[in-house]
């Protein structure tokens, strides 16, 4: 086995650009997913029976269907339904957010419900309105408790963004496939790519843990 890393040295701007797309895809889907999750989580925790039932159906359905299937369906089938074609990156962001939103919703709900019910009642007794009490009293404490699972969700989002390669989004995974095909150096290229992912993901996983340990006391109720 002889190693030859010249393709990496030669094509590193190409890989760097692909890494940029991976980060773009991840950040966009995390932000949209969290937004969806926040709405769904609050709604499921405090909403009526019908809302709870509909959200539960959405969450459990997303849990049941592979992200690959959601991405492929969004890119190939959704345009036929709505009559508008979608760019690969748009389909990637849409599918990943839809997927992540369900998981984020569960995290938000669990976080909200973990704050003792007495706090909400106390806030209401002090004359706060319900939305106010949730926003000012419950949510800030819940957010701190949600940190570790949110860290895992971000890690999952970055890893799942690699699956967007199946609809030819020019992100890191896809571009290394291309590069490996052109240069015939799969070991060097896929190993480099793997290390790049690790270098991004490992600090996120450890960083959120450390942040949580520092802030945990603020979320204790």
């Amino acid at each position: 086995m002889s190693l030859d890393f010249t393709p990496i040295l030669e094509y590193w701007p190409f890989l760097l650009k692909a890494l940029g797309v991976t980060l773009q895809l991840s950040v966009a889907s995390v932000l949209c997913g969290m937004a969806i999750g926040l709405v769904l989580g609050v709604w499921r925790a405090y909403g009526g029976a019908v809302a709870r039932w509909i959200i539960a159906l959405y969450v459990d359905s997303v849990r049941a269907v592979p992200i690959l299937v959601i991405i492929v369906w969004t890119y190939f089938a959704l345009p036929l339904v709505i009559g508008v074609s979608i760019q690969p990156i748009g389909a990637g962001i849409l599918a990943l957010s839809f997927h992540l939103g369900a998981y984020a919703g569960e995290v938000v709900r669990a976080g909200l419900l973990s704050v003792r019910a007495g706090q909400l009642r106390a806030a209401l007794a002090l004359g706060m309105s319900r939305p106010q009490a949730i926003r000012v009293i419950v949510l800030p404490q819940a957010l701190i408790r949600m940190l570790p699972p949110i860290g895992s969700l971000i890690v999952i989002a970055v890893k799942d963004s690699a699956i967007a390669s199946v609809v030819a989004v020019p992100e890191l995974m896809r571009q290394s496939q291309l590069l490996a095909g052109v240069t015939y150096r799969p070991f060097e290229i896929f190993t480099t790519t793997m290390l790049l992912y690790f270098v991004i993901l490992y600090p996120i996983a450890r960083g959120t843990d450390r942040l949580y340990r520092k802030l945990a006391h603020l979320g204790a109720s």
Partner: protein
Amino acid sequence: MTLDWSVIWSNYGLLLQGAVMTIVLAVLTMLIAIPGGLLLAALRLNRVAVLRTVATGFVEFFRATPLILQIYWAFYVLPATFGIGLSSFWTAVLALSMNVSSFNSETFRAGIISIRRGQTNAGLALGMSRLQTMRHIVLPQATLRVLPALASTWVSLFKDTSLVSTIAVADLSFVSLKLRAETYRILEVLTAMAVLYWAMGYPQAKLVEWLHRKLRVVE
């Protein structure tokens, strides 16, 4: 847009075969990944520092890189660089097993650690050996505690098997994507694929939720 669902009915045997392959992959992987996870957990809790470090590195690496890339790596690098020529089926099982073993090891480790230290000490004080304490005191209690997390991993695994379609293992997503390319009935075939996954996965997701509720630890 006109829909023609007959493409699904005339190819249901093919889709069924794909679904069976998906189940086989998930079952086989879990059968390997439970002992694999136990081994890694044992290494991580070992008193020998070198073993701990190696096992931790292995686990962290597999948990912090995308599974699809691990599958690709195994498929392209093993034969080209190391001369290991596995079929795509066994390549898929290998990559999935390594990945799920890493996740399982974390589950098992957390389960073992969650049993209070005093119980191990009590076992040792009664004259049991370290291995006996592990087998008779810690593991039986830890088993119940890891069951919900293990079940969650199973559901993830069941879905993640779809990634092996990228290396041409004929699972449900591979046969569906092939059928889509052959028949051009894109919406029908892709929707049928999603519905089939949903029909298999939804009861599992519900079961996991029930397990989490049922076995919640109250200390």
